[in-house]
């Protein structure tokens, strides 16, 4: 155990500073966004984002389950034997999913009805179990909670954004408030299942295009000084020999 900790500390110091709290938190929102980069949680992403409220509620429910599961899994990581760790994670996740389900039904019954079975299906969301196995089981409580919070926020923001796009186009409203007026004919397909695929596809397409543009810019930027370097080095060479 000590050796392991030492080596990982060494790796971190070689690479520069270790991940800061901000990095642990922010990576889930953008760099490793669970939906847009890791492409996880597609079931609920496509199914319940037909309005802003539904997307937001689903995101927050998942965030709740993620944070509490990470809190418990990371606190118990040295107590739970390796052989029963997955069973224990699933038990913890299932418990908090049940609590989220009952809590939503008691506090916001209308939204709970709209989300239907998908709240209960948080238990099967890859993001939740994935973070436990990939992060919380290996890191301390503070970092695990930050990681879960970041991933949950990334999930919530993505679902809310998708809900906003689909509700605006498919119902002409935002948070239930009419935006485009009575003369707007809603694109009903956007709030139906195909609309989920269209929206996610369009976002991923845009993101891929944006990333390739950014990479090209960076390559060009990196290439530019090399040319100057050679141009400078060429006359200097022979001068040194002479």
């Amino acid at each position, binding site marked *: 155990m000590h050796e392991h900790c030492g080596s990982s500390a060494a790796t971190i110091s070689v690479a520069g500073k270790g991940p800061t709290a901000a990095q642990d938190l922010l990576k889930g929102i953008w760099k490793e966004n669970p939906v847009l980069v890791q492409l996880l949680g597609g079931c609920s992403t496509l199914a319940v984002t037909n309005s802003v409220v539904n997307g937001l509620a689903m995101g927050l429910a998942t965030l709740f389950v993620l944070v509490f599961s990470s809190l418990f899994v990371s606190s118990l990581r040295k107590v739970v034997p390796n052989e029963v760790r997955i069973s224990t994670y699933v038990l913890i996740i299932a418990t908090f999913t049940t609590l989220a389900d*009952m809590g939503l039904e008691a506090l916001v*019954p209308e939204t709970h009805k709209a989300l239907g079975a998908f709240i209960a299906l948080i238990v099967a969301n890859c993001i939740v179990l994935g973070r436990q196995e990939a992060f919380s089981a290996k890191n301390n409580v503070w970092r695990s909670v930050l990681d879960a919070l970041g991933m949950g926020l990334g999930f919530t923001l993505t679902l809310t954004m998708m809900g906003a796009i689909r509700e605006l186009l498919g119902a002409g409203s935002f948070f239930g408030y009419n935006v485009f007026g009575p003369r707007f004919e809603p694109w009903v397909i956007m709030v*139906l299942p195909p609309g989920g695929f269209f929206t996610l596809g369009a976002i991923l397409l845009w993101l891929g295009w944006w990333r390739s543009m950014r990479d090209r810019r960076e390559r060009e930027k990196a290439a530019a000084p090399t040319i100057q370097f050679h141009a400078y080095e060429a006359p200097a060479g022979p001068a040194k020999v002479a």
Partner: protein
Amino acid sequence: MSGPHVAEMPAADVPVVAHPQSWRLLLTLGVAGGLAGLLIVLVFNWTRPRIEAYKSQQIRAAIEEVLHAPQRTDTLYLDHGGIATKLSPSADPSKVERIYKGYAADGGVIGYAIGASEAGFADQIVLLFGYEPREKQLLGIKILDSKETPGLGDKIQKPPFYAQFAGRLAPLLGVKGKAPPGDKRAIEMITGATISSRAVIREINNAVQRWQPLLDRYQRTGGTN
């Protein structure tokens, strides 16, 4: 020759992995399960009254709507094949069907609020309707639960469709396009949502067919048993 050599190699290199004892695995899962159960039961006990209160408030509001704000309502039970004002001791209250009788301010009976649930285009359409059995007239309907297609079938929950039912006579008849003026049975179906519209109409007709003889018998006997 190489056999024993190879066999010895891993023994020297692989560290001895201590497997935890079975009781530790059992204890871990047992304690985790117990704590999880405890937490769930606590939250269940806290949320249940709120959930129940919300459901009964939903039904109360729906009764108010379909019977046009009655002065007071009585709950009637379907018990042993007849309508009764009181449940017999042998009946299971959680399984008995209920209808609600609404009274006007002058004490006269407005009508009865009757629940119905049948398959629509997607899942069950649960609704409540107000009904006056002497005239066989509908007083109003309220969709309580439906998962009909957004933008199409879910128009059954919007006034242009459901407001038609008040004042119509059973059995209802769904028509495409404009209903003939003066036709007291015609309901205009929603363009693009014929299945959902037809399901609501069929649901009400079936419920009326089922409850009419029961209500007739109940009223013949003075509505007191």
